[in-house]
């Protein structure tokens, strides 16, 4: 009886995968503020902030790089993603299907879902470092790629299981939980950093800048880590969520917005999560390095516990959880777009299992900066295609939604734009040593140009041949 009731409740989860969100289901700005603030004050912030320290970012580069990069990210959400979300009010996956066709979308969705699983997996791994504290769990180090103990596997399975069950109940539950947790999480991040400042030699506000330069963000990378400059930090901050804004994945979220300018609500996530939280976690990590004589152990849970006690450990668990939830939800939407008849909760369950298995590998955490950049880069070309299809294709007197209009299962303009952009990025990386953080910007223009040129020739031939 109880089982039937739960199944009924799960089956009733309606997320408007293949039709525009109706007016009555649109959400107010507060919903997005909580969602963005919660999602970007995540467990991974406890990894990214410390990795900037490990990569030898200087205090000046960090302050300015994060400021400019985050402003560019907010503008990308507000002026690229939001207007398209308002216009279409459908998921990224359904929109892509209309433009690129079922076959291309299937490949994209598989890649996308896998990327989301890995990302959510890293968040679950971060949470597991906090769950393991009371059990004396052996924590992974910067050089670990594989699970280092049975205890680690048990911890990630426990966190992954709970995260998946909550995600199975849909977006509303996730949004509500994120709303509740967000203000408290942010304060714990800030409080834990402020409380340890005296131990780093900061006893007054005037001390801060001096210690920031000589103790926290020293400008010297740890052994084996590459050197980060202003440009690394700025581009990382801008493109950390490239798949979501420029890559348009947040169409799935912002299609619920009443107004386009709700895209600016992403600023809550950027400036609280990707500024204050990255700096706070960097401060905590600097203390850890000082106390352990630059140990290679890398575990956000114990680092937060050192600064804020049990509240710090709880925030790592919840911060990982509130971000893993929407990420698993997005991965579920990606897979469901391939098989629309599958129930949302069943797809989410499958995604949750894949995510949990991925989270067993600490490499996802240790190489998070590179993975985040790679994931944005791989998915970004589709964002360029969508923008061109919405704004430039009609001006060239070509047809929008090519696959739907001409009843095609694969739009070769999209296939070539996507594939060649990724090859071009690899060429820049391998031949000229351009680091992955810098490949997104030139890649976007290559993808946009290729899509327009090839679309022109494909559609011109169709019209000339009288196919239309």
């Amino acid at each position, binding site marked *: 009886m109880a089982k039937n009731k739960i199944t009924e409740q799960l089956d009733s989860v309606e997320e408007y995968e293949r039709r525009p969100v109706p007016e009555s289901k649109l959400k107010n700005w507060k919903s997005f503020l909580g969602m963005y603030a919660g999602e970007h004050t995540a467990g991974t912030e406890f990894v990214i902030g410390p990795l900037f320290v490990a990569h030898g970012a200087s205090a000046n580069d960090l302050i300015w790089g994060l400021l400019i990069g985050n402003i560019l990210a907010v503008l990308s959400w507000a002026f690229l993603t939001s207007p398209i979300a308002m216009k279409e009010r459908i998921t990224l996956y359904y929109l892509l299907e209309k433009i690129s066709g079922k076959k291309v979308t299937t490949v994209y969705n598989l890649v996308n879902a896998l990327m989301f699983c890995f990302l959510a997996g890293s968040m679950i791994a971060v949470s597991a470092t906090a769950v393991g504290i009371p059990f004396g769990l052996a924590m992974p180090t910067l050089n670990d790629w594989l699970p280092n103990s049975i205890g680690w596997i048990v911890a990630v399975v426990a966190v992954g299981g709970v995260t998946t069950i909550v995600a199975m109940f849909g977006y509303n539950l996730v949004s*509500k939980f994120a*709303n509740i947790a967000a203000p*408290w999480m942010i304060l*714990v991040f*800030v*409080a834990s950093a402020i409380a*340890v*400042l005296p131990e780093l030699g900061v006893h007054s506000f005037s001390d801060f800048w001096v210690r920031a330069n000589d103790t926290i963000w020293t400008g010297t990378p740890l052994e084996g880590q590459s050197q980060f400059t202003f440009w690394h930090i700025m581009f990382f901050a801008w493109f950390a969520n490239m798949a979501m804004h420029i890559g348009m994945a947040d169409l799935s979220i912002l299609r619920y917005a009443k107004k386009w300018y709700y895209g600016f609500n992403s600023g809550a996530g950027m400036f609280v999560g990707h500024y204050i939280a990255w700096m706070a976690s960097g401060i905590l990590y600097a203390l850890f390095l000082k106390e352990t004589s630059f140990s290679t152990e890398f575990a956000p849970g114990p680092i937060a516990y050192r600064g*804020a006690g049990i*509240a710090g450990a709880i925030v790592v668990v919840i911060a990982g959880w509130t971000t893993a939830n929407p990420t698993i939800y997005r991965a579920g939407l990606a897979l469901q777009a391939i098989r629309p008849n599958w129930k949302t909760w069943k797809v989410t369950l499958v995604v949750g299992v894949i995510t949990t298995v991925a989270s067993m590998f600490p490499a996802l955490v240790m190489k998070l900066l590179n993975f985040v950049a790679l994931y944005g880069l791989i998915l970004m070309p589709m964002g360029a295609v969508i923008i061109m299809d919405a704004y430039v294709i009609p001006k060239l007197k070509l047809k929008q939604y090519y696959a739907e209009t001409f009843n095609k299962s694969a739009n070769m303009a999209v296939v070539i734009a996507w594939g060649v952009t990724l090859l071009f990025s690899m060429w820049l990386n391998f031949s000229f040593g351009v680091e992955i953080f810098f490949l997104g910007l030139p890649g976007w223009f290559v993808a946009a140009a290729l899509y327009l040129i090839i679309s022109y020739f494909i559609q011109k031939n169709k019209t000339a041949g009288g196919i239309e």
Partner: protein
Amino acid sequence: MKTLLKLVSLIGLLATIVPSFLVFADIITLDTNKLLMIVGTLLWFISAPLWMNKKVE
């Protein structure tokens, strides 16, 4: 009732953030701060769900 709950939530948030400044000013110890933070956490999570999200839908 809602006002009272909001007040409890506010106390919870204040208990989470304010003690860290007291540690910085060398008025309380880090251990006391950690204790107050967990009290603040409990107050927040007990009270906030009772008034937040009530008008979301």
